[in-house]
């Protein structure tokens, strides 16, 4: 079965394991989700599964969405997300809930990070800034020299593309990989993962079985 769901981040708390270990956990209310579209190599050029989450009132939706979700035998849904998978093993209209994570040890969580607004180079790219003294004046948080005027081809009229500078920070798609699943509660549609996940409380997150584990976690998964 496809082990992927859309959910909402509820918040963080602590969890004591049986041995008394104190584990920081994020509570995610995930699913139930509806399979609203199955994309295949033949029809779409790639294979993926689209899930829908959270019913909305029809008058808050649009006709195209209502029709799209109706094909999956579902009321209009507020959130649709796509998961790239081969061999999805699901069909249009299937309902998924947290129990798909029953045998999953580690998950990846994809979310939209908190927006930080327009930020300088020090906060945005971890630049060091200039010195606090030794004659530095009014430029203590400066990014420093941004290089000469050169294009990617050589010299030119502009700064190099992709030069790291001040700008909008946060509010972007962030994936955290290999989070341990501490427990699931199919009755309340809750999944508890170890550690923080991107975005604010109430934010939409995608939870999927870990695609590729970090080395240490792969060792843990193999051992038990």
């Amino acid at each position, binding site marked *: 079965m496809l082990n992927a769901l859309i959910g909402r981040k509820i*918040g963080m*708390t*602590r969890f*004591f394991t049986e041995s*008394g270990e*104190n584990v920081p956990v994020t*509570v995610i*209310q995930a699913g139930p989700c509806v399979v609203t579209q199955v994309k295949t190599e033949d029809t779409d050029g790639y294979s993926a599964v689209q899930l829908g989450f959270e019913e909305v009132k029809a008058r808050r939706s649009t006709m195209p969405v209502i029709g799209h979700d109706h094909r999956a035998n579902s009321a209009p849904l507020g959130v649709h997300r796509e998961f790239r998978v081969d061999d999805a093993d699901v069909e249009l209209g299937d309902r998924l809930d947290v129990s798909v994570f029953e045998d999953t040890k580690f998950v990846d969580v994809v979310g939209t990070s908190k927006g930080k607004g327009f930020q300088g180079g020090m906060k945005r790219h971890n630049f060091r800034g200039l010195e606090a003294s030794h004659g530095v004046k009014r430029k203590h948080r400066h990014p420093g020299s941004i290089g000469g005027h050169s294009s990617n081809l050589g010299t030119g009229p502009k700064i190099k593309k992709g030069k790291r500078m001040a700008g909008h920070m946060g509010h972007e798609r962030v994936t955290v990989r290999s989070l341990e699943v501490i427990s699931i509660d199919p009755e*309340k549609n*809750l999944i508890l993962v170890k550690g923080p996940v991107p975005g604010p409380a109430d934010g939409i997150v995608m939870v999927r079985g870990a695609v590729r584990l970090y080395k240490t976690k792969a060792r843990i998964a193999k051992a038990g």
Partner: protein
Amino acid sequence: MSKQSIIEGVTADQLRDPADFPQFSVGDTIDVHVRIIEGDKERVQVYQGVLIAERGRGVNRTITVRRIVANEGVERIFPLHSPRIAKIEVVRRGDARRAKLYFLRSRVGKARRLRDQRRGLKHTS
């Protein structure tokens, strides 16, 4: 269901029975019996000190216990609902007029002691 109540529902069965612990308050000298796991062996260590702060609610409730070890102040923060805490005993009830006794950190020697809650028994150490 609000987010708060969902989280409370998750942690509800983690909370320890209030009857597990005696009544204690900031200023008391308490014994905290801590389960220590070494390999597959488990033993209980007693940590005695003055309760100088309580904070948090629900499963996040913690207590800060200060004691003097080899002339050096040591503060340990215990999550109250941790299964690693075997037992808490009140050794002496101290008289504290404030919720956080951080002023004890700057006190040296006899001034460190708190008045016993039973008035009249001043400065029992």
